[in-house]
């Protein structure tokens, strides 16, 4: 068990190194450098020299990559070109806000989805299942920004119950941010719920028809006990992976949703950085996102191993 965890962590680490390499190389491969990309028509004379000096572009790519990684490990992500501030300062509060939004959505969406998924699975092809599955399909197929615009129209513009967009600064207290979280969190959990619910439903149906459940039934185990002792843990294993993927999806979903709602998180910062051609900031955020992505997947792998008796051993089971 311990070995598996160590091995997974090793893989996660290698993945991160690989991803950071790609992030770095893709910026290197752009024509010009970060300073000419940022300054555009003003890339000449003292302004360009000052920028090159600040970003340390006189060093070779290999040295810059090494310094960049070493800095990132210590929490130093460099200096934003447009904002002329250490990136760490810019990211701090915004990371908190994004985690708050994604966390709220997940905290609401995941349990809701699992319950719905179980219910639908247990009532397969009955009216409740058809209704839940149908709504889930709809929620999945409508792009999140459409759902968002619809909700803004209904709740902010028409009914005037909730703010249409967030107008508090990134540094606002959690209490001030909370009212602004409601609409974006609903949108995010809607899409998320649909994905996880579908997976849970499939897993439940799968397990219900499996041999060991059949065996338990033949042995006369009460249905309630079968569901709680045998079906639930087994059905959760594939679900955990989907949850991990969905939480990772939350990150990309969050970019769009944050922008639509003007929410002061990592997503809006990333888009602004792209508009500003502030490449050091784009690089840093890409790195942070990949770190979270890999981290969440690592957690999922470990929890799946904990849930699955077959994975708890390092011996191969065929």
């Amino acid at each position: 068990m311990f070995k598996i965890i160590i091995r997974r962590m090793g893989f996660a680490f290698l993945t991160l190194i690989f991803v950071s390499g790609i992030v770095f190389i893709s910026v290197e491969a752009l024509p010009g450098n970060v300073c000419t990309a940022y300054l555009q028509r003003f890339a000449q004379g003292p302004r360009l020299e000052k920028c090159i000096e600040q970003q340390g572009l006189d060093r070779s790519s290999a040295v810059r990559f090494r310094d960049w990684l070493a800095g990132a490990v210590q929490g130093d992500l460099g200096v934003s070109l447009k904002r002329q501030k250490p990136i760490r300062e810019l990211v701090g509060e915004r990371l908190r806000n994004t985690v708050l939004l994604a966390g709220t959505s997940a905290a609401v969406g995941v349990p809701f989805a699992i319950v719905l998924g179980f219910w639908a699975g247990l009532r397969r092809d009955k009216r409740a299942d058809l209704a839940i599955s149908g709504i889930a399909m709809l929620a999945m197929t409508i792009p999140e920004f459409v759902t968002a615009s619809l909700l803004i129209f209904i709740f902010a513009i028409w009914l005037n119950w909730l703010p249409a967009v967030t107008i508090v600064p990134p540094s606002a207290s959690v209490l001030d941010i909370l009212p602004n979280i409601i609409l974006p969190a609903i949108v995010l959990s809607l899409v998320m719920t649909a994905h996880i619910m579908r997976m849970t439903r499939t897993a439940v149906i799968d397990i219900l028809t499996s041999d060991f459940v059949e065996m338990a039934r033949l042995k006369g185990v009460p249905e309630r006990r079968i569901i709680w002792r045998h079906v639930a843990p087994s059905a959760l294993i594939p679900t955990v992976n989907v949850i991990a993927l969905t939480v990772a999806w939350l990150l990309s979903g969050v970019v769009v949703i944050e922008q639509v709602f003007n929410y002061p998180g990592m997503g809006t910062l990333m888009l602004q950085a792209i508009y500003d051609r502030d490449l050091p900031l784009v690089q840093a955020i890409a790195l942070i996102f990949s770190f979270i992505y890999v981290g969440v997947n690592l957690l999922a792998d470990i929890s799946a191993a904990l849930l699955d008796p077959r994975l708890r051993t390092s011996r191969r089971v065929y």
Partner: protein
Amino acid sequence: MKKAILLAISAVIAANVANAQTLRLPHEIFSGGAESLDPISPSRFFEVGQTVYSRLVRQDYDGNITPDLATEWSATPDAKQWTFKLRPGVAFHNGNAFNAEDVVFSLMRTQSEAIDSPTKGGLSIIREVEALDPQTVVIRLNSSHADFPILLMDYRIRMLDAETCNNDRNKLCESGIGTGPFKVVSVDPVGTTVLERSEGYWEGPAKVEKIEIIGIADQQARVAALQAGQIDVVLSITGQQSALFKGNENFIVQPVATGRWLTLAMNTTTKPFDDVRVRKALRILADRDSIGKLVFGEGGYTVACDNPVWSGDQYRAELNCPKDIEQAKALLAEAGYPDGIDVELFASDVTEGLVRMAEIYQAQAKEAGVNVKLRIAPANGYWADTWMKSAFVGSSWSQRPADQILNEAYRTGSAWNETFWNVPSFDAKLDEARQTLDFNARKKVYGELQETLFEEGGSFVPLHQNTMRVISSKLSGLPEVEDFTIRFQDISKAD
């Protein structure tokens, strides 16, 4: 008597209560939160600059130069020395009197190497500024400039308090203390910045009591916020978005002409564009009106005849430039291309509409036998690697007054002379315009310069962009003028 005073006071109070309104403006967060309260900083906070500080002169709603903190001005006959009389009794928000020393400080600091302000180039014509007495300044120029006050009308050239800024010309001054209609209460560019009206403003207190400037980076989000009543105005929306507000009695959509333009620039020193006949043929073959309609939609543009001077400028020449395929073909034949010509055009997604304009131009050019090979260059590095490097490229410019745009884009040796328009007689006329103090005579010279560009130049300028502004119908006192001309103190808001 006493009664009358009391009545007057209560009337004033009543009026104040009635106006106790907050105007809420969106802020596009152009500097990502690093917005500076210094009006000449490269990352200036636009909405604060417009409301908190004053200029020496300002434009009226028709674009004419009118007094602000300067009440009158005059020039020596060679237009090299200007004397400005200052408005008496004006005070900064901290109580300091505004005087000539503040003008010396505010103008000279634009030339600081350390600040490296975008206003440095425009005002480098200033040699020195002298305070003759507290109410009079003399500005001596390096060369003649009959329209020098226009340079001072730039929205960034604002008057700061020399004392508050420690008279340090080489440092940004972010005190937020000006002489404008509003004073700063709190600043948060990505959140909400609060201003309150200055009761001592020289023109009388502003109509609204407070302004809140709310940071919303995304255009869609700004539109949603306007619809939901979180803000009162969006200065510029797209044609598509304006449909959301048409027919809605809660909002007013204003079309506003601006001086932003898109262009296809030919290098007039390389083949085949060194032949004036080829240049003219390539320009007159276009149907400018349909380019405008296809790129920006009905009402989204004002046709230009290759003159970069925009429709709101007093020096704009009224030219006529219909599509003329026959003449274009004849000119090309005369230039040695009777069977048409192949040209390579570079464009990029650096400005909205540029690529689309190039594509439409490509289609239109076929009719005149011009085969345009369109190359879409990556936006990254476009200005460094393609613009002014390739012979025929797309480009875009923001709004500038006539004299400035003609000098920046068409004077020999200018850094952004993108058509390599090195014509001594043109330069001489640019100088002549600056030396001509009589307005009508000067206007004639600027008109001739624009005609020359239409007859011989290398810039294809089919249009200037219009923008659509949406305002809440609660607002009044905001006429259809471009952003720099808005006077926020004149806007009032109904309950």
